């Protein structure tokens, strides 16, 4: 093989290897980056109002399934008593926890800066804490683990990029963002099938998650007409139209029934 032939030989070999092994393809973004942040709309803080309310439940409380974690003994060890599914849970006073309440329409004309602080999703006792959380598009979601076992965080969005990351015991926090608004993104753990969290992504800061008293407050709302929606994992969603006047505190209660 003379020099010229040798050179062609190697060119052909390299090309074949690139084809065979898959030449590095230009990365196709499944999801365009969030548009460059627009300047925040000035809001007159002296006139902002709020919407508060209570999410209640009528009817017979559903029987919650007991979650048995025996496949992974370290999950069992972290609980002193039986663990029950959080979906469908009703507070003792008849209110609903884990309802995600947010402004569905009415806030489109405002732009809000992306918060610099992150929102935490913890894994403790092979359960997600909190079970339901809200975050703004582009804001950092920080995923932590306190469990001495591996987890596999797997959000299943419709409008955002799907990802699936493993986190070993004592692993570094995982930081991710969702660039588009989406109500709600279920999150599962591929290792522990019972683990579930729900993430509500909004383009504004007007959201809240109900706790043990079933109440919520959406603060800092500029005067205007809003549709607010209450989302629950088990009992469906409801919405209400609310008009907030300058510095007004409005009430919007919701009542769910067993579906």
């Amino acid at each position: 093989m003379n020099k010229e032939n040798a050179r062609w030989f190697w060119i052909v070999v390299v090309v074949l290897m690139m084809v065979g092994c898959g030449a590095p393809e230009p990365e196709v973004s499944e999801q365009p980056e969030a548009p460059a942040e627009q300047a925040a709309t000035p809001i007159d803080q002296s006139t902002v109002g709020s919407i508060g309310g209570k999410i209640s439940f009528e009817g017979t409380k559903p029987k919650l399934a007991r979650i048995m974690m025996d496949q992974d003994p370290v999950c069992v060890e972290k609980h002193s008593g039986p663990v029950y599914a959080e979906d469908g849970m009703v507070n003792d006073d008849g209110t609903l926890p884990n309802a995600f309440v947010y402004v569905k329409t009415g806030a489109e004309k405002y732009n809000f800066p992306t918060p610099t602080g992150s929102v935490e999703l913890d894994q403790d006792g092979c359960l997600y804490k909190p079970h339901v959380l809200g975050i703004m598009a582009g804001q950092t979601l920080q995923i932590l683990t306190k469990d001495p076992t591996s987890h596999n965080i797997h959000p299943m969005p419709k409008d955002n990029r799907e990802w699936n990351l493993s986190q070993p015991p004592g692993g570094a926090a995982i930081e991710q963002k969702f660039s588009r608004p989406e109500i709600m993104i279920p999150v599962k753990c591929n290792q522990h099938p019972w683990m579930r969290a729900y993430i509500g992504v909004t383009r504004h800061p007007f959201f809240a998650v109900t706790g043990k008293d079933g109440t919520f407050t959406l603060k800092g709302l500029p005067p205007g007409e809003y549709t607010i929606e209450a989302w629950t994992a088990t009992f469906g969603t409801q919405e209400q139209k609310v008009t907030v006047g300058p510095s007004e505190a409005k009430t919007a209660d919701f009542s769910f029934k067993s579906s």
Partner: protein
Amino acid sequence: MALLMALVVTLITVISAALFWARIWWFPPDISTHGYAIDRQIVLTLAVTGIIFILAQLGLAYFVWRNRDRGDGRKANYSHGNDKLEATWTIAAGVLFIGLNLMGYRIWANMHFTGAEPGAAQIEVWGQQFAWYFRYPGPDGKFGPTHVEKINDAIGNFLGLDRDKDEASKDDIVTPTLAIPVNRPVQLTLRSKDVTHSFWVRELRMKQDLVPGMEIPIHFTATQPGRYEIACVELCGMGHYRMRAFLEVLSDEDYAAWLGRMAAAQ
């Protein structure tokens, strides 16, 4: 140099054989009524192949030493072999190989192509990425139907049961652990929710794939109470390495008590 080479080959042969002979890394104990036949077959295969291995290796060592360079300038003489000898040992190896296979096949067929004894405890085994679930039919002895649209892992409905509507589902017991009674025949029906998995308990000498869309029965009787690992032995995705559960072989009383506790927890 030839002597050294012959010694190394001999040493490797002796150490390898000794490891098997002394049973240093041997099988875990057999806890099934059928396992002795499998163990016997494996030991027979090991003995036959072991003897051939030792003879072949020692022969190699001997010829390396016998045909060493004696420093007299003789050139190596290449032989094209002996057709008769070649044919003989190829046929012998073939007969041995096919014979061992047929013997093993008979044992496998006896385990898989015979029905479970009447009265065997019926349990369903469900594989999913990446966990095992087990279903007991409850006092009515019937498994309720499963509904794909009802599957919701977050509320513990892993199999899609409709306990409100389906009478047979009301008393079904779904657990993450497989408990079975000792010394009683058990029939497992293997089902998969997603991809191919494989059920394996080393001590049971039982391995069988779970194939989506199929219901595959296996049966056995466990003879030793204890807790054993169930591992998935078919690469089923990223979390395959962690797909495991436990087999609890219990006395009749403990089994009844366990079933009662699990029924109460449904």
